[in-house]
């Protein structure tokens, strides 16, 4: 979300807000109008229209401009203005390339009159003036969801699905996407370049995802996009706190939209519950001075109780139907949220839920969580046994969270030499300053060198 102070430029503010709510909608509306135009050109035109708005709206009102309300530089229907200006730019583009675009002759012949200025646009183009899409009504919610399902294309990897969802459904700018996902702007650009080709070649935004049954087939992918977007925002190791929080908000909004439009199923409710349980604890994860806090160090009074209770309601509602990984993860989060202290947490039950999750989605990263839960549930030997198996695995060997967990659990176990060994190993396994600071804090708790040499003997 854009944060704007009270004395910010109102035109800039309106345009930022408009971009946030309408960018993808206007792009997809124009794509539907002219299916032959490359997506890049449509995006350029919309981008240009936003830039034009910045200068035009800042000027005092010109009475002859029918789209701009008298007495104000900002038009009465800002999205309609942007749409019209972008559309006119595309019309000029089509004119300019008319000869090469022979297939477009039918369209271009009906286009006449000056097309470059916003003011004269409405009546010249039959079918476009009075029928300019209504940028105020509820149909947009549906269109936004339609776009979301379009982004859930099975040929794209989840990362690409997330990037185009953030770009066209959540309307984030490229640098915001890059910061949120820990990528470079260049990396996002490259990825979008390939995705746009796919979007154009397969008319991704134009085809209706179809009947409710067609939607259903993509629902698990949509869930995954929402889940991974939330996780990207939730993990402390990427981006800055404000960007991360807004990513979590986006995921929650998309999920709520699915539920409100009755497009979801019981997995949607479990996913929504899971995200609420975690969002409720967002603020508790850092100290007032900005340090990263482990679960056992968090001030539980910081957790948002009303959100936790709402999450509980959704988890209860999600029960009929097949159990998904979201159900298990939400149940684990619920057990954490309902425990009054770290020590009074039902670790036995949590470890059993992780085992279920592991059977559903066998991978070393879930196995690590299972091992940690086992330690706190009192099954110390099995916990270390699993972690030592994991660390033999090439990719896990250099994995920050595994080495940090081993270090911390050895510290709790009183095995100082091993604690030191694993904690020190993590220092070049993360490139995030908050995580490094966290490890240094754990290392500072170790007794001084002379002591633990004695302990090791």
């Amino acid at each position, binding site marked *: 979300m854009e944060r704007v102070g009270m004395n910010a430029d109102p035109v800039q503010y309106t345009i930022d807000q408009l971009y946030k709510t309408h960018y993808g909608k206007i792009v997809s509306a124009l794509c539907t109008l002219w299916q032959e135009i490359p997506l890049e050109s449509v995006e350029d035109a919309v981008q240009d229209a936003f830039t034009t708005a910045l200068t035009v709206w800042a000027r005092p009102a010109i009475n002859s401009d029918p789209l701009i309300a008298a007495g104000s530089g900002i038009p009465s229907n800002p999205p309609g203005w942007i749409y019209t200006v972008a559309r006119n730019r595309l019309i000029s583009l089509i004119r300019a390339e008319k000869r090469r675009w022979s297939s477009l002759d039918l369209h271009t012949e009906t286009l006449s009159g000056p097309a470059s200025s916003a003011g004269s646009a409405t009546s010249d183009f039959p079918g476009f003036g009075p029928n300019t899409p209504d940028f105020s009504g509820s149909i947009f919610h549906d269109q936004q969801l339609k776009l979301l399902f379009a982004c859930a294309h*099975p*040929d*794209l*990897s*989840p*990362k*690409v699905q997330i990037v185009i969802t953030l770009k066209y459904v959540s309307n984030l700018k490229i640098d915001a996407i890059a910061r949120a996902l820990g990528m470079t702007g260049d*990396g996002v650009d*490259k*990825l979008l370049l*390939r995705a746009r080709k796919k979007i154009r070649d397969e008319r991704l935004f134009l085809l209706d995802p179809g009947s409710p049954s067609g939607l259903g087939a993509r629902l698990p992918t949509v869930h*995954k996009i929402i889940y*991974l977007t939330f*996780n990207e925002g939730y993990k402390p190791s990427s981006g800055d706190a404000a960007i991360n929080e807004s990513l979590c908000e986006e995921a929650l909004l998309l999920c709520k939209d699915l539920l409100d439009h009755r497009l979801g199923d019981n997995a949607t409710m479990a996913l929504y519950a899971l995200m609420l349980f975690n969002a409720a604890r967002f603020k508790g994860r850092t100290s007032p001075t900005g340090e990263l806090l482990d679960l056992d160090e968090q001030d539980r009074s910081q957790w948002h109780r009303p959100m936790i209770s709402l999450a509980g309601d959704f988890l209860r509602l999600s029960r009929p139907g097949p159990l998904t*990984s979201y159900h298990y993860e939400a149940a684990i989060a619920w057990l954490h949220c309902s425990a009054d202290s770290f020590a009074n947490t039902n670790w036995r039950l949590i470890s059993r839920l992780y085992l279920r999750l592991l059977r559903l*989605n066998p*991978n*070393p*990263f*879930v196995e690590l969580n299972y091992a940690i839960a086992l330690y706190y549930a009192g099954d110390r030997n099995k916990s270390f046994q699993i972690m030592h198996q994991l660390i033999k*695995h*090439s*990719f896990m060997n*250099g*994995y*920050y969270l595994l080495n940090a967990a081993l270090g911390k659990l050895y510290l709790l176990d009183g095995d100082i030499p091993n604690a030191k060994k694993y904690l020190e190993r993590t220092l*070049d*396994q*993360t*490139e995030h300053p908050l995580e490094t600071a966290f490890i240094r804090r754990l290392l500072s708790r170790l007794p001084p060198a002379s002591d633990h040499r004695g302990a090791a003997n």
Partner: protein
Amino acid sequence: MEKFLLLIREDLQFRANMTPAEFQHNIVIMTKWVEDMARSGNFLNADPLTNSGTYVGHNAVLSDGPFIEAKESISGFILIQAESLEQATSFAQLCPLVLNGTAAVEVRPIMDMEQKPWKEWV
């Protein structure tokens, strides 16, 4: 979902000359990539390979292998499951070594021996 083997191909001479810090950085970024694939339920297995090995030629002549001289030798593998070759390719395009231009990835579908199309012909 179908299974795919992603073969990482890179210049082993270049890899052998990396400083420990550069090598460590590569491990951090590759682990992140693998973790993302695990989170989305696509990761199955992966391992890097050492730079040396042996090579058994067609005439059973043993050599140390032409690995290090080759511009693009296999330096590791990742086994994933994906919806389609397209999606598997989309994963490969996000390999951090591909993004920084130091490696190529070969995407090969695992042959499904259970799939016998003629069953549907009759």
